[in-house]
Every structure is written in C-alpha cells, then in structure tokens.
C-alpha cells in the first residue's frame, strides 16, 4: 500500500481547499492504520504527519503510546520525530508519560552528546512533578558533563525541573552556582540565565550572589550575558537598596562605552529602576546621581528622536520609569514627548499619553488638555477611550487638585458630551456621566450652567 509521507499530506491539504476537513479525517484514518504497522519507518512517518496536524489544531493525544514507541527507536531520525511529537503534545494528563522516565535516564547516559541533548530537550518540554523528581539526580549530574553543549542544556532544564519539583532547588543549587565559574562562556551564560529567572521569582534568595555578578559586570564582554547580569542585579535592588548606589557607576561605564543598543538600553532601563532606591538615609542624593541622570536622559532623548520606531518606543518607556524618581529631567523634555502624540503608531501614542498624564501640573493642565482634545477629534476606538479617560482622570485627580478653573472644565465636559459614542456603553461615556454629576454636586458656581446643559442634552437626545 502506498503510504503518504508528510510532503504528500501537505500537498494533499493544499489541493483540497474546499473539503480540507474531510481530507484530513481520511488522512487520520490512514494514519491510524499505519500506526499498527510493524515497519518502524511507516510508524515514524505516521507520527511525523500527526505532529503537523496537531499544529493545525487536531488533537493527537490518542496516539501517545505510538509517540513513545517512535521516541525510543535506536534510529536518530525516528527518535527526533518521536521527541518532537512528545514535546508538542504531552501534558501532565498524558498517562503514558511515565514510560518516558527510564528511557530518558538511559539517554542521559549516552556517549553521544546529541542523544543527551534531545533527551534533555524532551524533559524541558514535558516535565511533570513525577518526571522531575525521578530524573533530578541524573539531570543534575549532567551539569558536570565533559561537553559544554550538554552542560548548557542541563543548566536550562533545571529551571523546569525546579518549577515542577521545588524541593529540587535546594538540593541542586550549589551545582548551578558552580557553573558561574565554568571554563566555557556559553555555559556561564546559561548559568546566569537560569539564576536570572530564579531571582525574578525570589530575589531575596540570590542576594548573596551579588558580588559574583558585579564581577561579571566588569569582566565579561558577551553582550547577551551582560544584559542578563544587568537585569538580575536590577531585580535584586528592591531587596537591597544599597546595591542601587553601587550599580550606578558600573552601569554608567557600560552606557558610555557600549556600541550595542540592546545593552545600552538595558543599562539605562535598570538605572531608571534603581534610582528611587539611591536616596541616602538623610534624604540627600549621592554625588554620582545627577551625572548618571543626565547621561540617561540624554540617551533616552536620543532614542525618542530617532526615526527608528522601536527606539522611540523604548525611549518613552525609559522616561516613564525616570518620572518616578526624577520628574524634572523628564519635564524638561515635554515638547519631544508631545510630538509623539501625533505618531501614527498607537503603541507609541499610548506611551506618550501615559507619560504626559504623569507630568501634569496646575500650570500645564489646561494647555495639555486642549492639545488632547484636539487629538480626540481625530481619533477613534480604544485609543480615543484612553484619551478621554486620561483627560478626566488628570482633571479630577486628588479631588481636582490641579484644576483652577471649573468653568473651563465644565465647558470641556460639555464638549465631550457631543462626541459620537455609538450605541455601546463605554467606560469613557460612563466616566463622563459620573464626572458631570460629580462636578455639578461639588461646585456651586457651575451648577446652573451644568444642570442646564445636561437638560438640553437629554432633551436633544430623546426627541
């Protein structure tokens, strides 16, 4: 019988655009027959086809045992096919997953680094609490394998294993920490990576490693690793504020010297997150701070003015963070941020809006709202919702503390009433209604005006 291979299946699906469902059902019936075959090549190809169908949304969990069979083949080609199917489809509910345990144990002991690599990759994809507990010892001993290729994969899989079997972390962490001193830079990079993820969940437990990471900051030249080290140190800062001041200088050095925008940005970003923690106990700033703030502000400004939309976006994100500790530096660049409100890209407009709303003062409120109202006229959808809500939230913040002229605000609210809200009830229209009522109740001076306007509005609507 002529069995279709994967290419035949794909061609067939493409040729049956009108009745794809029927064609695939037929193909699955054929596959079910093929899985009963004694020929391992037929079986492997059948599993290969099933993996493809799973991507299209078909459940293939009924074939799990066949997947295991193919996975345990001595032929590398078939093994890979089986592993891929398992990686894509096995879940904690897959009953036969336990059958993988001893197979993986055996493969971990293979003399071929790629057999080991495939097995580790499999564990990283399908790990369950049982698998993790049972394979913890074997997987962790791979951390000392002769080949860096294996050590790297072993490091990363430990994260998954710890997530599923938390007790494993305490047992194995020392071996992971040792890898920070590995001969191979790729291995050190992976060690940094896994510790970074672990520290994100539990920064306190990794504070003792801070000195080691400081050393890596100044000794490594691998940008990817540096980015992770910077992120890691950044996540430790909230737990140990004294770290914040220590970080400023090394980060500033990197900012001044690196050519890699990704690393530059990460350092600036981490500086902005660390700055709130750099205040000394007596409330003063350390001497390094103003210089570093200027350095970051200058770079972020350049990012925002760059024609590259990605840099523009990241520059705005950086400014949002900087607002928290040094609003004045950001305020000085108000015009540039205002310019971003007219950008075509909605992601950029939203960030600019968020930033501007955080910058508002009594003096600048009316001017800013006028500009935003102008934008409201030409915008639509969820961006318009954001604009309206921002306008109202800025004006009403802290019991209207930024507002000096309620007459002006009342006329703004009335103007907003006359926009087209369509037939759906939106958050903005509800907020507007509440604002109208709230202002009318609180401010006697505008009560007659607003009440009259609301009456006219209702009369107009319901006639």
């Amino acid at each position, binding site marked *: 019988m002529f069995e279709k291979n994967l290419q035949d299946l794909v061609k067939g699906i493409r040729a049956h655009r009108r009745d794809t469902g029927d064609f695939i059902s037929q193909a699955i019936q054929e596959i079910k027959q093929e899985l009963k075959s004694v020929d391992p090549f037929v079986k492997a190809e059948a599993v290969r086809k099933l993996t493809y169908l799973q991507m299209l949304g*078909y459940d293939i969990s009924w074939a799990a045992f066949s997947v295991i069979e193919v996975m345990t083949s001595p032929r*590398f*080609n078939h093994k890979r*096919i089986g592993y891929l199917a398992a990686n894509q489809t096995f879940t904690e*509910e897959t009953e036969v997953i336990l059958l993988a345990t001893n197979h993986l144990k055996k493969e971990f002991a293979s003399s071929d680094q*790629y057999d080991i690599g495939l097995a580790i990759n499999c564990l990283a994809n399908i790990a369950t609490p049982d698998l993790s507990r049972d394979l913890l010892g074997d997987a962790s001993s791979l951390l000392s394998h002769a080949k860096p290729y294996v050590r790297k994969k072993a490091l990363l899989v430990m994260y998954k294993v710890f997530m599923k079997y938390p007790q494993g972390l305490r047992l194995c962490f020392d071996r992971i920490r040792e890898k920070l001193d590995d001969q191979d830079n*790729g291995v050190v990079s992976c060690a940094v990576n896994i510790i970074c993820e672990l520290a994100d969940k539990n920064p306190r437990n990794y504070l003792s490693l801070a000195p080691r990471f400081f050393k890596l900051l100044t000794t490594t030249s691998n*940008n990817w690793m540096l980015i992770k080290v910077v992120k890691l140190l950044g996540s430790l800062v909230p737990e140990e504020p004294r770290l914040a001041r220590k970080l400023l200088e090394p980060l500033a050095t990197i900012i001044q010297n690196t050519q890699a925008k990704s690393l530059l940005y990460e350092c600036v970003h981490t500086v902005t997150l660390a700055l709130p923690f750099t205040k000394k106990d007596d409330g003063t700033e350390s001497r390094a701070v103003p210089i570093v703030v200027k350095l970051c502000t200058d770079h972020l400004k350049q990012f925002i003015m760059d024609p590259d939309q990605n840099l523009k976006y990241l520059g705005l994100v950086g400014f949002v963070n900087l607002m928290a500790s040094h609003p004045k530096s950001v305020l000085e660049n108000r015009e540039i941020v205002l310019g971003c409100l007219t950008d075509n890209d909605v992601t950029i407009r939203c960030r600019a809006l968020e930033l501007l709303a955080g910058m508002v003062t009594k003096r600048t409120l009316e001017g800013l709202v006028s500009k935003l109202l102008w934008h409201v006229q030409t915008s639509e959808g969820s961006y318009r919702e954001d604009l309206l809500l921002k306008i109202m939230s800025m004006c009403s913040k802290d019991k209207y503390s930024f507002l000096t002229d309620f007459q002006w605000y009342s006329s703004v609210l009335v103007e907003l009433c006359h926009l087209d809200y369509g037939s759906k009830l939106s958050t903005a229209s509800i907020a507007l209604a509440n604002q109208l009522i709230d202002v009318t109740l609180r401010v006697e001076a505008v009560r007659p005006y607003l009440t009259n306007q609301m009456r006219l509005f209702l009369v107009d609507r319901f006639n």
Partner: protein
Amino acid sequence: MIKAVMIINNHGKPRLVKFYKTVTNEDAQQSVIRKIFQQVAQRPDNFCNYLEGSITEWGEGTKLIYRHYATLYFVFAVDSQESDLGILDLIQVFVEALDKCFENVCELDLIFHSDRVHYVLDEMIMGGMVLETNIAAVLASVNDQNKLDSGSLRMQLPTHSATSHSMKSVVEGVF
C-alpha cells in the same frame, strides 16, 4: 522567559507553533494563535515591533515582539525578563539560520519541512530560555545532527519483528 514562538503567514495560517508556557488543549492553542495574528496583522510595517498584547490564556505582562518578512510574521511572546532589543536581534539570527539551512528560505520550505524548522529553533531556545545566540554554533549543531539523522536511516537493525522489538524496549524501559 519566552512564552511562545510562532511563525504565521499573512493570512493567519500557522507555519510553526512552539509553546513554552503550556496552553493545554488544541482549541485554546488555536485561539492564542488567532489572537496573536489579529493583533500583529493590524500593524503596518512602519510601526514599532512591540505590542503589549493581551492574551488571556497567559495573563498580564505578555509582550509580543515580532518581525514581518515578506509573507511571514515571526512572533516571540515574552515577559519582562527578556531584553526587547535583544529578542529582535534573536529573531534576526533565527531567520538567518533558517536561511542557511534551507538555502534562501521561503514560506514553502517552512510548509513542507516544519519539523526541520523546530530542530533549528531547539538549538536556540529551550524551555523558554535562550540557549545559544551565535549563528555559527547553532548551524554546527544542526548540521551535526542532520548527519546523524541521514546516517541512521541507513542503519541496519537486528531482524526480528519490529513491533515486538519496540514494545519490548519500551516495556523493558519501564521495569
């Protein structure tokens, strides 16, 4: 952490789907693919490559970082532990690796050899974390394994019934 890597074409058809943060059933997976496609496809090419998307299956804090090449969107769904610009670079490395493996890769290559695309990705990202960013190292591993692959097809195995062999080895493995 990287939550997923996807390659989706201009019409929303998935060409590669890899979930690192599990989405347990096929319907939910297809729904995530659709949501990602809808959000990404709306954006013209001169917009920035970052989308703070909201994918309910993953909760808050997922960012979609993507690149659009001809007929394909390469989308990486990540959390805040990943470097925004770094991931953009990584997508580039991934595409270059595919280009070397398939010789001027095009969508048809991905359609007919989706498993080989997975094998390349597996040398770069594992368990949601970046394993290797150097393209030469990635290609070396991929090529070594391709050799093992084709070598194994010529492999002669002891001739007894293939079914009993595989059943035997699986069952032996358990006990």
